[in-house]
């Protein structure tokens, strides 16, 4: 990591937290490019970003539950697929070429954007 850029973690943390609370996701989409800018290797960016988002998502979850935005049991049916997918994704990360990670990342996000804006 570039030493001079370490202070950037503070304002960036603010932005990632804000997004995570506001959109319930998306912190990673901003966090990964931020970490890359700070000089981390691509695969490190993606892995480190999950470590950053996890406690933030836990806090967000607490707030959403408190606001009764959703019911916890409605999330249960996504757990088996989620756990299996996590194993596969985590296994894949060190094995994927970074350029493909970035392109796949961009394409996926764009597809989601089009879907959301045109529905």
């Amino acid at each position, binding site marked *: 990591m570039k030493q001079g850029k*370490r202070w950037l973690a503070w304002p960036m943390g603010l932005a990632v937290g804000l997004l995570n609370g506001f959109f319930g996701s998306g912190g990673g989409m901003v966090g990964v490019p931020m970490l890359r800018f700070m000089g981390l290797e691509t695969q490190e960016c993606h892995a480190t970003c999950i470590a950053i988002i996890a406690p933030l998502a836990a806090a967000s979850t607490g707030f959403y539950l408190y606001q009764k935005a959703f019911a*916890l049991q409605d999330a249960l049916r996504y757990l088996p697929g989620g756990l299996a997918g996590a194993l596969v994704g985590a296994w894949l990360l060190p094995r994927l070429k970074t350029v493909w990670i970035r392109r796949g990342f961009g394409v*996926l996000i764009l597809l989601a954007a089009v879907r959301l804006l045109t529905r």
Partner: protein
Amino acid sequence: MSWVWATAASFFGAVISALGMGGGGILLIYLTAYLGMSQLEAQGINLVFFLPVAAVALVIHAKHKLIRWKVVLPFVALGLPAVWLGAWLAQKAGSDLLSKLFGGFLLVIGLRELFSKAPSKHKD
């Protein structure tokens, strides 16, 4: 058949999440565009869904020494209070506005990723 789609969406969402690629987008799209769930409810489910997925992914990434723990701490320290502000603003904004804003946000980030310079500085 709905459980097949639910499992598929959660599986692929988790794969992408564990890759740190924004898998939240996938489950959110499934929940809102396919199931017709409100944006706020979908966001809540997506958040709690991410927790076990992240736990599994983190154990594996830590084994591969891919996590820079020193960077994590300052991010989280300021991120936590910001989370509360964001979640509060989301409640104020309401689901319809949130959904449009999220679409616009994804568009910007996606275009930026797709057309950014190749990461040639690092060894790939």
